[in-house]
């Protein structure tokens, strides 16, 4: 794939963002390659009732 980019300047007015989190990017400009990976794990067994003992490792 061939791309020809002609940049004539970028003007940004107002931007409001709550949060940029977990491998995300807010970019005003050029980019060649972006690889963003995010893992999030909160399975049912991570919801523990009553047990205030140290967390046993998952085998």
């Amino acid at each position, binding site marked *: 794939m061939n791309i020809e980019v002609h940049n004539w300047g970028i003007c940004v007015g107002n931007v409001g963002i*709550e*949060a940029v989190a977990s491998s995300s990017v807010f970019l005003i400009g050029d980019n060649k390659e972006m690889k963003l990976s995010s893992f999030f794990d909160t399975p049912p067994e991570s919801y523990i009732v009553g047990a*205030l003992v140290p967390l046993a490792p998952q085998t």
Partner: protein
Amino acid sequence: MTFSGIFNIGDTVNFSPRSKAIAVQREGNVWNTSYDVHFHYYPIFQLPAKWIEKPIPVVSKNNHHDGIISVNCVSIQAVTQAAGIQFGGIDYINAESRIKHIRIIKQEEENMD
């Protein structure tokens, strides 16, 4: 800005932040100093990321006639977990964040009346 969050004005060639976190929410006012959770306990921190096997070959030609980037007002409240804010060019980004979330709730006392 926390946990390898980056704010950059200008050009960047390589940006590859990493972030690993275990978020334990414990009910009660007891501060946990035992630090009894470790990354190697949980498989999420060992899983390989899955990427595209054969990336598409791209040939790009840039013509910067006017290199001005003018930004009036940007309001951002949080930048966290291997995230990035960039005003300007950035060539290669390779970001990864891993979060394990655990909630520990106190047992409800059954009232005996």
